[in-house]
């Protein structure tokens, strides 16, 4: 299903906020059409890596390309939908309806000075219905539950029909049933709509039958490859997915990178 074309390519990336590097020598790529789970313990740099991919942070060294272009040259940000880990830590008193928040996902697509047209509002409505919030169209977002708010942000990311959807722990605060529905929705987006997915999660169990690729991060890229390889490795090694102390894995990863 996934092609050979890499939507995201990262080479020898280093990043630090202050003195200490939080990401070291990261090599990473994500094929078009793939569904990749990015896992790693708290503080391992997952959100930081996403922010670098989104151009919210600049690396101290290394190269990032998205859709085949250097990130500094890349302009089509509307191709990328993003749901931040902090999405529902917004100011809940903010007076905006579900409709208005989701519509804001079209800002870049519409372009400067352009206003929402009839079709755009139609698209907003479809997207809100698709995430199951049809009855809350005109509700202020602060008056929804945490899980519902999360779905609003997912709708905001989807409304511009992105080619790549990046989700940072989107299921925090969502109940078990809705998590399952949510994963099915991601699966559908990936398989039937051809959207490439990059999902940061601590719930490897829940997504293991859906994802095609896995990347394990802990400051360095510990493992990066197809789901089958990951399963094989898991069987080989008694260690589990956070595999801190598996230098062999990172070595293997480099070999893979070279093959490509």
């Amino acid at each position, binding site marked *: 299903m996934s092609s050979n074309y890499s939507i995201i390519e990262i080479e020898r990336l280093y990043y630090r906020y202050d003195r200490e590097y939080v990401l070291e020598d990261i090599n990473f790529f994500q094929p078009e059409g793939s569904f990749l789970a990015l896992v790693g313990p708290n503080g391992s740099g997952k959100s930081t890596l996403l922010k670098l991919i*989104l*151009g*919210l942070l600049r690396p101290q060294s290394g190269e990032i390309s998205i859709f085949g272009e250097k990130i500094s040259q890349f*302009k089509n*940000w*509307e191709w*990328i939908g*993003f749901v*931040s880990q*902090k*999405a529902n830590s*917004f*100011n809940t*008193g*903010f*007076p*905006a*309806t579900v*409709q*208005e*928040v989701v*519509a*804001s*996902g*079209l*800002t*870049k697509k*519409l372009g*400067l*000075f352009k*206003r*929402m047209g009839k079709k755009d509002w139609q698209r907003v409505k479809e997207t809100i219905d698709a995430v199951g919030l049809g009855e809350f169209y*005109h*509700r*202020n977002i602060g008056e929804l539950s945490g899980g519902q708010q999360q779905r609003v942000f997912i709708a*905001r990311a989807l409304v511009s029909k992105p080619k790549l959807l990046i989700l940072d722990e989107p299921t925090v605060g969502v109940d078990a049933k809705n998590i399952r529905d949510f994963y099915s929705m991601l699966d559908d987006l990936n398989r039937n709509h051809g959207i490439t997915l990059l999902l940061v999660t601590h719930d490897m169990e829940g997504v293991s039958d859906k994802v095609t690729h896995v990347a394990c991060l802990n400051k360095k890229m510990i493992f990066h490859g197809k789901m089958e390889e990951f399963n094989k490795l898991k069987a080989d090694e008694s260690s589990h997915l956070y595999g801190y102390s598996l230098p062999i894995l990172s070595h293997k990863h480099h070999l893979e990178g070279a093959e490509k």
Partner: protein
Amino acid sequence: MIEGILQYEFLRNSFITGMIIGVIAPLLGVFIVVRRLSLIADALSHVTLAGIAANLLLSKQFAFFAGISPLYMGTVFSVAGALFIEKLRSVYKHFQELAIPIILSGGVGLGVIFISLADGFNTDLFGYLFGSVSAVGRTDLYLIILISIVVIMVVFALYKELFILSFDEEHARASGLHVKSIHFVFIVLVALVIAASMRIVGILLVSSLMTLPVAASIRIAKGFKQTIILSIIFGEVSVLGGLTFSYYLDLAPGGTIVMIAVLILILTMAVKKFSFQKAG
């Protein structure tokens, strides 16, 4: 009062100005309030005071400055203050609110020095502090109209960008928007509105006209657009009501305008409480 408006140009000017600032002050006020920048308006109004005091001082020395309205110099100071706040906010990244007391005290300090150099207070200055119904000259009015056209056009053109920036700055950045420039434009608009509103409501109360109507509307409105519309209605009622009272009772308009805005705020709180009790 209608005859008064028809008869006296100054009254006419004041009412036109009132109607204009009743729209633009709450319009920008909504963005200011939701972004928790209310104090910036205060800081900028004090910088505007420094500009006006500077003009009063200069007009004593140079005939040229006596010929132009202090409002122009106030506007220049206000915009310069806005730019300086931005600079400070980028220097003190982790203490962005520090920019506000720095600018505020700087503005007051400078203003006080200019005032004392210009031989102290005069009635003119009193009008700038608390507002005046008789203060808007024709050239003032032209400037205010120009400012309001610019403000309304820019907010209309950049509405969705301003919204996304207010609601979720990180999302705005991740969408590839040039957040810095948009914020910059916004803060300059705020400076312009403060300069335009000052003549009627006075420097000390400008920020209330930007925030009180919003505080009232945010409690009862559904959504952002509705918040804006209600804020403008409340602002307009406050300004026109306040001007009318101040004309008949010979009060400083700034005070009456703000007190009406406070009254509206209390009413919306009561209405909300009442409707909750009915529902529950």
